[in-house]
């Protein structure tokens, strides 16, 4: 019999309303129209409402005089500076408290995370209590507690607690000696940079030598010597161009020295303590994620605990630790916006708080604030993605 293939048996093209390509284009167009229509609706309403309330649009307000002082500023700021400058003051303050928080939270988090895994039952329990307590209490509550309950009960300036007669702690803040850099100090900094670059090169060279000949090189101590020794040498050679301005009690307050305001202390302390609890859990999860077979194999090769940790466990644990760790850094940076609760002049408090209230330019200000945080988040995520791709396990 004829086995000719009957073409009418093949399905043929579906009707256009069932064709996936057509449907895809249709729904995407619908979505585009919907999104743009919605945005247009919002934008036109906003412009209408702002015109009705007499609020101007645009960024002309950036040049107007601010007219208010800021409690703490890393750059010089007076009331006659512009609103635009308040943005930078706030931004620098946010970066300052975030930086301090990140550094101390990482150190504390790693220590507590490793302690949580300790064989010493008491230490492990203490670390567990710390983690469970501070993870489950809201950050805002912790900030308010540290600021209102603790720092407000510090003594007055005349009865400050003093340490070594140079550090003074009272209700107005912590006063530390201020370093005064004289003219020759830049040489020390240059030598510090040289030391760091030298240490990087030593590490690379030592690695190459190890791979080629198998001979180890004391990289750590050499780098330490370079990074610490070279600047100290330059410092001594240029005649020690560094003096300290000591805080001194004059009248009712302290003059001189570097004041650290209690708001910064409360915010930094609570951010550090809160984030350290999360970082401790991340570190613990990272170290536990390394298969026990790795430790056993390292022991079988004759490695003791120290080299096992350093060469086998921690590099693999870092692969698991770093992504959530960077997301905790992001959280810390975003949480620093809670500074409004205690009056620390960060970006949100100064720019999206005082400046917004005074100028009424809500849309521009809030959008720029969100843009700043978005930029920080996206750049850190971007860097982290690069790191992730580099260390990712390439599986079959």
């Amino acid at each position, binding site marked *: 019999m004829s086995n000719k293939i009957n073409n009418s048996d093949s399905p043929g093209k579906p009707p256009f309303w069932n064709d996936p390509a057509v449907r895809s284009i249709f729904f*995407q167009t619908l979505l585009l129209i919907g999104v743009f229509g919605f945005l247009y609706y919002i934008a036109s309403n906003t412009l209408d409402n*702002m015109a009705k309330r007499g609020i101007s649009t645009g960024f002309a307000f950036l040049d107007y005089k601010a007219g208010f002082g800021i409690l703490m500023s890393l750059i010089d700021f007076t009331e006659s500076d512009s609103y635009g400058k308040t943005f930078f003051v706030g931004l620098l303050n946010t970066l300052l408290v975030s930086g301090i928080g990140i550094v101390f939270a990482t150190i504390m988090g790693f220590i507590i995370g490793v302690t949580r895994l300790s064989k*010493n039952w*008491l230490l492990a329990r203490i670390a567990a209590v710390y983690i469970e307590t501070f993870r489950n209490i809201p950050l805002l509550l912790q900030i308010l507690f540290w600021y209102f309950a603790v720092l407000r009960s510090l003594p007055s300036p005349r009865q400050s607690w003093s340490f070594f007669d140079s550090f003074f702690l009272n209700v107005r803040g912590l006063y530390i000696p201020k370093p005064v850099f004289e003219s020759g100090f830049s040489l020390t900094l240059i030598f510090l940079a040289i030391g760091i670059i030298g240490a990087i090169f030593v590490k690379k060279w030592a690695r190459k030598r190890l791979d080629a000949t198998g001979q180890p090189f004391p990289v750590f101590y050499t780098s330490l010597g370079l990074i610490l020794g070279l600047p100290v040498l330059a410092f001594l050679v240029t005649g020690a161009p560094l003096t300290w301005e000591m805080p001194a009690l004059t009248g009712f307050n302290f003059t001189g020295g570097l004041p650290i305001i209690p708001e910064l202390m409360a915010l930094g302390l609570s951010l550090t303590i809160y984030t350290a609890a999360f970082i401790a859990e991340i570190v613990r999860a990272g170290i536990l994620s390394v298969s026990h077979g790795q430790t056993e194999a390292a022991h079988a090769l004759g490695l003791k605990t120290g080299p096992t940790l350093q060469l086998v466990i921690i590099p693999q644990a870092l692969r698991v630790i770093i992504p959530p760790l960077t997301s905790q850094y992001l959280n810390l940076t975003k949480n620093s916006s809670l500074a409004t609760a205690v009056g620390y002049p960060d970006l949100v408090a100064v720019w999206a708080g005082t400046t917004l209230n005074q100028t009424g330019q*809500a849309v521009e200000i*809030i959008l720029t604030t*969100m843009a700043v*945080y978005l930029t*920080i988040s996206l750049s850190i995520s971007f860097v982290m993605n690069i790191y992730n791709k580099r260390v990712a396990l390439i599986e079959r």
Partner: protein
Amino acid sequence: MTHKNIAFFTTEQLPSLAPPSNTVGATAWIRQNLFSSPINSIFTLLGLYVVYLTIPPLLNWAFFSSDWSGTSRADCTTGGACWVFVQVRLQQFIYGFYPSTDIWRVNLGFLMLVALMAPLFIEKTPRKGLLAAFLLFVYPVIAFILFSGGSFGLSVVTTDQWGGLMLTLVIASVGIVASLPLGVLLALGRRSDMPIVKSSCVVFIEIWRGVPLITVLFMSSVMLPLFLPEGVTFDKLLRALIGITLFQSAYMAEVIRGGLQAIPKGQYEAAQALGLGYWKTMGLIILPQALKMVIPGIVNTFIALFKDTTLVIIIGLFDLLGAVENAIKDPAWLGMAIEGYVFAAAVFWVFCFGMSRYSISLENKLHTGHKR
């Protein structure tokens, strides 16, 4: 050969001796866990010292020399914690400014919630789907009518009178329930093949995840009235809820996306082989597995949301923390800051710790990995 030393031979097995006294029991445990090496011993002693410095004074302050009963500041006679403050202001802490005569409505609403949710945690209840559907769709309407009144003869209680722990629970529950479907849609959209859908979902998620919740709340309370045509006003609580829901849906989308990524491709292919379209595949095959896999992640997001509800104090809503802050500033109760904050911390801690323990037990129940 004669066997000379017969004493060396026995015919039955000797009874086994007890282990050495320093290898069993409490002494062994202490030696191993607390004093196993010189450094460990030093740390143990330091740890004991730290515990000695902190725990007895804390217990003393909180329980042993504290005032529990009374009506005013004058009743705080001992030097310790003055829980009279908490006891007197307890109604405000829990219900906010809700009128005292109508508190039974709040109690009824939350009792209903507990009664409806409890069977969901017991394995054997039949018709869980029906119960869940009732809880999701019918209960919110009932609760809203109960809390705000206006019909069935209940007096109206406006949302700016809601406050305290009740408001915290309302915001957290609405936030989580509303953000879940939105998060599912966003997660599905992010994994879609259609480029515009995918990029809009990515942009939406990254924007909401990259900004702090405070700016979201500022935006929703300050800018939302500008977005709407004149004359349309939004309740302050509703504005906060919208902001929190959108914020939370981005985090929820990422959690669910993790679950979706873990479903093997074979499931999609099998569904296609059965002739299921996209939505049927998602609804019947993929999402049930993905959501079950990420329940611990969802609970963790809920815990984070619960803690984040405290931020509404910045836009003027008085949740539990707001009520405590308010009470602390009362001139009749000056100096009670520590008691107030400790009470609020204890309440939040109980809720969050309970939920995190539940999440861990869920993870253990559903986990099929290798435990070492």
